[in-house]
C-alpha cells in the first residue's frame, strides 16, 4: 500500500463526516430554496418565487444592512482589543510560563456557554443593574440609562465579549512567530517603539489579523441568538430572519435566505482572503 492511499484512508472518516453533514445539507438547502410551500407543507417544485420575495423586500435589505453593520462595528472593536492584548502577551510578557498562563486566562471563557455569558450581562446592564447603580451613585446621571440592555449597544457588547478571543488567538499566534532579531534590528537602527509596531510587527502579524477577521465576521454574520437575547426583540439579523421563517414553517423561504447569506459571507471572506493565503500560514 503506497503512502498516498494510506493518507486517503486515514482522512476518509473526516471526509465522510463533512460530506454527509456539511455538503449534503447545504445541497439540501439549495434544493429546498426552489420549492413551493403553503401553510402546512412544502411542495417539491422549481420556482424562483422565494428569491423574488426575498430580494424585492425592503425588509431583507434593511436586515442585511443591519447585520453587516453589526459585523463591521464588532470587527473594528475586536481588532483593536485583540491586537492590543496579543501584542502585550507576545512582546511585553517576558516569561514563557507567564505567557501561557495569561493566554489560558483569555481562552477559558471560550470553553463556557455562550448563552450563559450573554445572560450574565443582565444584572450588570439592566435598569437596576450595577452600572446604573454605580453611575447614579457617583452622580454622573440622575435617571437610569435605558439603552444599556436590550439595545444595539448590548448586542455589540455581547459580540465583543464572546468573540474578541477569535481575534486574540490568531494574532498572538502570528506574533510569537515573529523573529525577535527583526525587532532588535529595527530598534538598533533607531526606530521608536511605535515605528517598530507599524513597520515590523503589524505587517508580519497580518495573517493572524486576517484569520481573526474572517472568524469574527463569519460568526457575527450568521448569528441570531445574541441579537434575539441582547436586543430584546428590538433588532434584527439575517439569522433571526431565517429562524423566524422556520418557526412559521416557511422552510423554502428560510432556505433561500440561507443561500443568499452563504453567498454574502463567502464573498466577504473571499475579499479578505485576497489579503493573505491562509494555507501558507498554518
Amino acid at each position, binding site marked *: 500500500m503506497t503512502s498516498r492511499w494510506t493518507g486517503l484512508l486515514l482522512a476518509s472518516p473526516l471526509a465522510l463526516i463533512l460530506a454527509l453533514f456539511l455538503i449534503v445539507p447545504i445541497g439540501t438547502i439549495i434544493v429546498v430554496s426552489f420549492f413551493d410551500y403553503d401553510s402546512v407543507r412544502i411542495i417539491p417544485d422549481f420556482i424562483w418565487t422565494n428569491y423574488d420575495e426575498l430580494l424585492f423586500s425592503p425588509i431583507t435589505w434593511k436586515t442585511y444592512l443591519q447585520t453587516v453593520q453589526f459585523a463591521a462595528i464588532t470587527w473594528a472593536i475586536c481588532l483593536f482589543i485583540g491586537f492590543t*492584548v496579543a501584542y502585550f502577551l507576545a512582546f511585553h510578557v517576558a516569561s514563557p510560563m507567564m505567557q501561557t498562563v495569561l493566554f489560558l486566562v483569555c481562552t477559558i471563557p471560550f470553553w463556557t456557554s455562550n448563552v450563559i455569558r450573554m445572560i450574565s450581562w443582565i444584572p450588570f446592564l439592566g435598569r437596576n443593574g450595577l452600572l446604573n447603580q454605580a453611575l447614579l451613585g457617583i452622580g454622573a446621571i440622575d435617571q437610569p440609562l435605558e439603552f444599556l440592555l436590550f439595545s444595539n449597544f448590548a448586542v455589540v457588547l455581547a459580540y465583543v465579549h464572546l468573540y474578541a478571543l477569535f481575534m486574540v488567538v490568531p494574532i498572538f499566534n502570528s506574533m510569537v512567530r515573529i523573529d525577535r532579531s527583526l525587532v532588535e534590528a529595527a530598534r538598533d537602527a533607531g526606530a521608536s517603539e511605535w515605528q517598530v509596531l507599524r513597520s515590523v510587527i503589524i505587517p508580519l502579524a497580518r495573517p493572524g489579523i486576517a484569520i481573526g477577521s474572517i472568524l469574527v465576521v463569519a460568526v457575527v454574520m450568521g448569528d441570531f441568538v445574541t441579537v434575539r437575547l441582547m436586543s430584546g426583540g428590538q433588532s434584527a439579523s439575517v439569522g433571526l430572519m431565517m429562524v423566524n421563517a422556520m418557526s412559521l414553517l416557511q422552510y423554502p423561504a428560510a432556505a433561500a435566505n440561507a443561500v443568499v447569506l452563504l453567498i454574502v459571507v463567502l464573498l466577504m471572506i473571499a475579499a479578505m482572503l485576497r489579503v493573505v493565503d491562509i494555507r501558507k500560514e498554518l
Partner: protein
Amino acid sequence: MRGERSRAFWPLAIFFGLFVLFLYGPTITIVVLSFQGPEGGLTFPMRGFSTRWFENLFETQMVGDFGGSFIRSLTLGLIVTIVTVIVSFMAGLAFRRRFPGSTALFYLAVASLIVPSVLVSLGIGLMFRMAGIDAAWWSSGLGAHLTWTLPFGLLIMFAVFNRFSPAYEEAARDLGATPWQTIRHVVVPILLPSLIGVGLFGFTLSYDEFARSLYTAGTFNTLPLEIYGMTTNVTTPVIFALGTVTTGVSFLVIGAALGGMMLLRRRRRG
C-alpha cells in the same frame, strides 16, 4: 529580550487587566447572584443568602427538564469528544503528506468553520426531514456538532504535527516496529497532551452548542436549548443557578484537561 520594561508596559498591562475583568466580571456576578435569598431578584442588591435557586433547579416542574437535558448534553459531549479526537488524529496523520483530494478536504474543513452555524443546523434539519428520518440529538445532533469540533481538532493537529519530529518514528521503524506499533507506542504517547487538548475542544464546544442543536436535536432538548428556553420565560435567579452549575461543569472539565496535560508534561521531563 530587553532587560527592563518599556514605557508601554504598564498601559498595556492595565488594558489587559481590564480585558480580563470584562471577560470574567459578568460570570462572577451571576455566580454571586445565584445565591440570592428567596425574596431576591435578578439584580443586586442581595436579599439574604440561600441555596434555594439551586434546589429549585432539581424540581422538574419549575424549569422544564433540567436533569434529562443535562445528561443528554454530557453524553453527547462525550461521544463528540471521542469521535473528534480519533478522527482529527487520523486526519492529522494523513495531512503530513499530500494525498488525492487533500487540498479540497482542507478547504472543506475550513468551510465547515466559516459556514454560519444556523445554516448547518437548518441544512441538517431539512436533510433529515426530506429523508423522512426523525432528527435526534445522537444522530443529526452529533453530526451537526462534529462539523464544528472537527475543524478545530484538525487545525490543532496541524500545529502539533508541524512541531513533531519524524525522527521518533524513523527510530521506531529501524527497531522493527510495524506502522501500527509505531503509532500506538511512539506517536500517541508523545502527542497525548495535545490529544487531550483536542478532546477539551470537542467536549466544551459540543456541551455549549446552541445554534447547531436548534434544528438537529429532535424531540429531546440538550442543555443549551433548555437554558435558552428558560431565558424567555423564567424571571427568577434560578436561571443564574443554572448558569453557575453549567459553568462549574465547564470549569471542572477544563481543569481536568489542563491538569492532565500538565501532569503528562511534568512526568515526561522528570
